[in-house]
């Protein structure tokens, strides 16, 4: 076996894994704060990519202005969804709420297809294209930028949760809603903020992914891999999303390189099944203790 090839595959896998981790963090954020399983995360990501395309190519703005606008659009969308769909569903069974997000994903995919057509599109180039070498291994520059961006954002989130008042409020809400209310935390606002932050993050990730592989209305399938990531890491653990993302990115890249592209999904899902048998709440997820 060629070590250089292995190193390149590993690097590419970690690069893709960082984007998985970033989207996984968006997912975990929503789940942690509101206990909502957001299956529309892949479609929100797609929305980010298309919003960027709309701002950059449609309105002719500079990509560096379009990027924050796309992220802001994602955040606004998150706020809208939380207000219009998720809050009325408070207290309903978790199955109902996650079906609402499935429906939402379907609506988004349809709307995007209606506006931009079913064909895959390319985003305007805005990243430097000088090749990156780590040692001797070649790494596509976009993948490297994606990795760095994801790392920075995740680091920012971790710091935010640890040191800011909002982060502490979010952790308190996640731990015990009633108690959080009673110490004066505005729980509905925490819900809103979590959705806004998560959807903005997902939209940003969508722009990064779109820049690497192009965008299409079927991009939401990416959400399926992200689900595997968060299940493996544990639904309510940011560290879990990080580890799970890198792990799945690596496994997918290795499976793609040594077994063939069609094996990617099946290998990750097989891994998931085995893991679920061993530790049902993922690697870092909270074990729920049920009492009567």
């Amino acid at each position, binding site marked *: 076996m060629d070590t250089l090839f292995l190193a390149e595959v590993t690097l590419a896998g970690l690069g893709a894994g960082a984007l998985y981790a970033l989207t996984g963090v968006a997912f975990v954020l929503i789940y942690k704060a509101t206990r909502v*399983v957001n299956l529309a995360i892949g479609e929100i990501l797609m929305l980010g990519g298309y919003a960027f395309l709309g701002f950059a190519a449609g309105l002719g703005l500079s990509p560096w202005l379009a990027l924050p606008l796309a992220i802001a659009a994602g955040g606004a969308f998150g706020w809208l969804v939380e207000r219009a*769909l998720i809050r*009325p*569903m408070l207290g*309903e069974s*978790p*199955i*109902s709420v*996650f*079906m*609402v997000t*499935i*429906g*939402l*994903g*379907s*609506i*988004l*995919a*349809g*709307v995007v*297809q*209606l506006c931009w057509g*079913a064909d895959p599109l390319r985003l305007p180039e805005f990243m430097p294209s000088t090749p990156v070498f780590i040692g001797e291994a070649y790494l596509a520059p976009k993948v490297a930028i994606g990795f760095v961006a994801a790392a920075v954002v995740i680091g920012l989130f971790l710091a935010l949760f640890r040191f800011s008042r909002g982060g502490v409020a979010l952790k308190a809400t996640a731990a015990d809603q009633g108690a959080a209310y009673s110490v004066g935390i505005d729980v509905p606002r925490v819900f809103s903020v979590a959705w806004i932050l998560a959807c903005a993050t997902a939209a940003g990730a969508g722009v990064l992914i779109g820049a690497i592989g192009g965008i299409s*209305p079927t991009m939401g399938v990416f959400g*399926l891999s992200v*689900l*595997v990531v968060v*299940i493996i890491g544990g*639904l309510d653990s940011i560290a879990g999303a990080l580890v799970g993302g890198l792990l799945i990115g690596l496994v997918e890249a290795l499976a793609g390189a040594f077994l063939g592209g*069609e*094996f990617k*999904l*099946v290998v990750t*899902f*097989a891994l*998931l*099944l085995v893991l*679920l*048998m061993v530790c*049902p*709440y993922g690697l870092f997820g909270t074990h729920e203790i*049920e*009492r*009567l």
Partner: protein
Amino acid sequence: MRIGTLKTSYAADEALFDTPVQRVLLVLLALCAIAFPFVASPYWLFLACLCAINVASATGLNLLTGYTGLVSLGQAAFMSVGAYAVAVLEIRLGTPFALNLLIGAGLAAAIGILVGIPSLKVKGLYLAIATIAASVILHFLFAHWSLTGESRGLSMPPARLFGLTLDQPFSLYWLIMPVTCLMVLGAANLLRTRIGRALIAIRDRDISAEVLGIPLLRYKLTSFAISSFYAGLAGGLWAYFFRVVTPESFPLVNSIFYLAAIIVGGMGTILGGILGAVFMTLVPELLKFVANWATPIYPDALAALAPVRTIVFGGLIVGFLVFEPRGLAEIWRRLRRFFHLWPFRT
């Protein structure tokens, strides 16, 4: 006018069809179902068969998700097991179709049990993802196994019965409709037995059910087995209906479709499974009519049909969950109450 319940025995309380009026209506409905193929055009027969197949599968999923509370996103994958089994048996062995259907359904049930094993340890989303994983693996298997024709899939000869070839919607109707009716009746009756009550107890609170002495694993696996048996049978009927089975015939979207059908219809009611499946099958056809009708005014209507379908599909799920969480069955119940209590207001 009929107000309230006046039942004097447990038998009356447990009866499947509780009032004489209801029985008369059901007989009328059955007569309509028998007369239908003689008056309907092939297109409507085609739709009726499709509805019946979807009703069968949705009823199975309703037993699992609506009555036992185990979310599954693998119903279409279990259907594909039945469909492929039937196709392979028909092509390779040429065994009678009834036997093929039963073997296909049995195989689907066995795989359902296998998939259901994690259900003791994991629930909710974790279980839903485990069923997605199973369907991804099954899809991969069918797309790469020479027995199942790899990515080309299989095309099979029509079903034969006493020398008759069942290849038109008219003749297939007589195969599909009775089987579906039997399956729905079977499901309704199952819920009146101890098994059905155990399933409902597990849905309401599984730990309490265990304390009451219901063996959780056994009943959860039973539920998975029955549900995938239904899916397998529906898949087998599907195979005889379309006579081409490919790996793309049963995508994940179909599993979501069945879950959506029981949500729209009303989870945890037999009627809900029927109404939901029929409604969700007919909505795309309705959209097609609207598109045809709108073409002179808006020429791109047909091209926009596919995305609009996706939007309506999602919109129905969201709309029903937010505004009518108990589904069409609840609307039906309200309607019935209105007529029972008329002229008084409900």
